[in-house]
């Protein structure tokens, strides 16, 4: 029991990160920018590794975060430029993702001390995050929730417009609000956790609700439960990886929800006919 008390803070961070990422993911998918986020996330992690080379002995959190955030935003600017040349953006982002991944492995070959950073970049979790990171994450998610509340009409309207008219959103306030929790999560919780909680809820049950408001509530509850239960299992069964367990638990809950929603629909359809 005491070990669960020890990880109490981690449970709170898990719940908040999962719910925030699922809402950000909902907007990201509707705007058609999931691939863009994959590419930018990889670029952000690349920037984080560069900071570890530039400051090998002591890279404070703030400095590494600046490198990650700068790479992420610079990537967005580059993509905006590339769009104006009417390139095939999907292929460009997939290609870019692969090149960046290769580059990171090359860097690890040249600078073996980066190996642990690279591993935590990909498979890090709330358990590997230190106290300062957890506090920063909490502040980030609370701030994101406040910003979302304040600008919810604007963000939702832009999501609808991007989705229906295919507008490519520029580097604007929306991008900054939606990117803030992603960058923070990438840095502290790793690529696997961040991208999975961003993508899986909207991918599996995204369009099955009677309204977007209902979808948002369900996303928050499911992601929260998936992340917290996953963390609980990974603590109870010490040999399993935390992030992988959280992602797998989320996936199972989503599949069960999908099955329940489809059964409900079928029942309603039968009643009507």
């Amino acid at each position, binding site marked *: 029991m005491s070990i669960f008390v020890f990880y109490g803070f981690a449970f709170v961070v898990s719940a908040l990160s999962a719910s925030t990422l699922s809402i950000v993911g909902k907007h990201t998918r509707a705007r058609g920018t999931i691939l863009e986020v994959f590419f930018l996330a990889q670029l952000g992690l690349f920037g984080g590794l560069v900071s570890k080379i530039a400051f090998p002995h002591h890279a404070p959190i703030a400095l590494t975060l600046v490198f990650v955030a700068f790479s992420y935003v610079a990537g967005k600017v580059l993509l905006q430029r590339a769009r104006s040349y009417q390139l095939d953006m999907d292929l460009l982002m997939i290609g870019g993702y692969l090149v960046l991944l290769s580059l990171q492995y090359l860097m690890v070959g040249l600078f073996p001390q980066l190996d642990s950073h690279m591993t935590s970049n990909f498979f890090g979790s709330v358990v590997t995050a230190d106290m300062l990171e957890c506090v920063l994450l909490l502040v980030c998610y609370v701030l994101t929730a406040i910003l979302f509340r304040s600008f919810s009409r604007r963000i*939702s309207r832009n999501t609808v417009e991007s989705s229906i008219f295919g507008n490519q959103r520029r580097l604007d306030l929306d991008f900054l609000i939606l990117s803030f929790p992603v960058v923070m999560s990438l840095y502290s919780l790793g690529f696997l956790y961040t991208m999975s909680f961003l993508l899986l809820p909207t991918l599996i049950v995204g369009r099955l609700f*009677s*309204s*977007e408001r209902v979808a948002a509530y369900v996303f928050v509850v499911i992601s929260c439960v998936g992340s917290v239960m996953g963390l609980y299992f990974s603590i109870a069964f010490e040999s399993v990886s935390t992030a992988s367990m959280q992602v797998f638990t989320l996936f199972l809950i989503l599949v069960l929800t999908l099955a329940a929603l489809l059964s409900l629909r079928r029942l309603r359809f039968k009643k009507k006919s």
Partner: protein
Amino acid sequence: MPLLECDKLTVGYDSPLCSPLSFELRRGQILQVKGPNGSGKTTFLKTVLNILEPVSGRYHWRVAADELSYLPQIQNQNVHFSYNFKEILDLYDVAQKARSSIPSDLLRKRWVDASGGERQRLMMLSRVSPKTKALILDEPFNHLDQGTKQSLIEFLQGLAMQEDPLAIVLVSHQPSVFTGCETKVVELAP
């Protein structure tokens, strides 16, 4: 007083795409801009929306930026959200009178379950705020059957004939017949 005046306006990128256009648009009038593919309809729109510079001639709007609404073509039929009509309308400042034209059962309908005509009508409504004086529509009847197109024409006629009438610019490659309101046709020709 006209809301839009065009005087020998030619549009294009380096060279003119069409012969010079001269017309005026007042409140309550519908201006149809027609022409085959490549005749410069989209370039005309970009020009009067101040995205492109005219090749020659001039145009002048007598409306503030927030009094001019533009509805682009619906590009994506396969969206990834669950918004229903009421939720979408709540995101915009839709004039109450225009909003009340939507039946309550349609308000509960999700975008993904709606027909092309219902979607187009909702998006038209989203552009009618209490401040709107002029409405610009880009190919609003694309991929719609004749019956649906007719109901949207009647809806637009209503906007042009209401107590506080709108001026409407309609860019379309299909001819449309409006009755009861003043209609002007500009044919873009090379």
